[in-house]
């Protein structure tokens, strides 16, 4: 019933099928099933053309069976694939209840309206070439495409005029990185405090260096020590990359921005911080 490459055995915490029997989950043991982790990694790390998606799209029977229940209240445009058709039903029933509750809530309704208004706006401003390229390139045919325009603008094949150009990307990314930095006041204060303390210690230890051999040894030593302090202090900035790594990978998989802009913004801001450190 489902496409064989991505079915998963239902892992129900409550022991009952969470989709109330609408899909009979059967995985034939001879088929190779991709685990969720493998699916995610495939989506995140493979060089992604916007057409290839390893998760199975809902088959025809599903959409027809669930069609009325899962349509968002905004008629016509399905602005998001309802989660009840795409996520394999190992979601527990409480979570499913929450999801369905949101789907039919007024907040979701308002958001869909706003999204549709924005879509209409941009459709009215879109050139014919945009529509043509979209019509020809999206294979996600189960989405209803009204007026030839899909909600999934992220899957444009390249950064065309409706994506942000790299200067804007750089500006936005820099702003975000900077906010991350100054919202972390402990790190900044520690950096400055360490600089002051090291300076005081160096001053007291080395005193007034004179021109004898020991003075020259002192000069060499203090230079080396300052370099060492800065060199090891840079290790603290490593944590910044590690924490954002997962976020970055997801964003890159969806082609929000190219990696070079991310890298440049981050490097520049880290260097700025360290430059202030020197002073």
């Amino acid at each position, binding site marked *: 019933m489902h496409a064989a490459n991505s079915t998963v055995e239902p892992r129900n915490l409550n022991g009952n099928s969470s989709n109330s029997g609408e899909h009979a989950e059967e995985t034939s043991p001879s088929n190779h099933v991709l685990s969720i982790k493998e699916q995610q990694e495939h989506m995140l790390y493979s060089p992604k053309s916007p057409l290839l998606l390893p998760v199975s799209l809902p088959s025809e029977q599903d959409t027809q069976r669930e069609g009325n229940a899962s349509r968002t209240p905004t008629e016509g445009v399905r602005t998001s694939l309802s989660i009840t058709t795409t996520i394999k039903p190992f979601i527990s029933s409480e979570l499913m209840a929450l999801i369905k509750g949101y789907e039919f809530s007024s907040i979701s309704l308002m958001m869909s309206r706003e999204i549709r208004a924005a879509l209409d706006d941009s459709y009215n401003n879109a050139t014919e070439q945009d529509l043509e390229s979209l019509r020809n390139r999206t294979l996600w045919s189960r989405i209803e495409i009204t007026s030839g325009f899909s909600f999934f603008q992220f899957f444009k094949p390249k950064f065309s005029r409706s994506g942000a150009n790299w200067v804007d990307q750089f500006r936005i990314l820099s702003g975000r990185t900077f906010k991350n930095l100054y919202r972390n006041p402990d790190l900044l204060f520690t950096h400055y405090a360490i600089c002051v303390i090291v*300076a*005081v210690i*160096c*001053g*007291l230890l*080395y*005193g*007034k*260096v*004179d*021109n*004898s*051999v020991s*003075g*020259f040894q002192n*000069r*060499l*030593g*203090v*230079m*080396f020590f*300052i*370099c*060492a302090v*800065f*060199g*090891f202090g*840079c*290790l603290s*900035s*490593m*944590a910044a*990359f*590690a924490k954002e*790594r997962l976020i970055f990978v997801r964003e890159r998989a969806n082609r929000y921005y190219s990696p070079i802009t991310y890298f440049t913004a*981050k*490097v520049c801001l*880290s*260097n700025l911080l*360290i*430059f202030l*450190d*020197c*002073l």
Partner: protein
Amino acid sequence: MIGLQPDFQIWLRFLLVLVLFNITAASCCLAISIVVSDQGIASLVATLFMLFEMLFGGLLLNKKTMPPSFQLMPDLSFFNFAFEALVVNEVAGLTMIDENLGLKTEVGDNSNLTSRYREL
């Protein structure tokens, strides 16, 4: 407080070298953290990398007596360049007064100190 040379230009050069060195070190650490995804391993690798840079930085090893197979290593170490620049900037023009057995002898222009680092 330390009593290094108070000249303004020397201080500016000192600052420039420090800033460049800092930026280099930060870029190296960031590169390591990109390559290695696990944070513990990344900090270990970065620490070792910094230590190797310091080893070939010029203070802990005498460059002239290094075995020939390692002759290229100081050129790969950015510590080396920063340290050399700082020291040359600081002591150029100073004379070292050597005190031996109560006698103060001027060893003269300490080009012997700076020539240790300059490979002419």
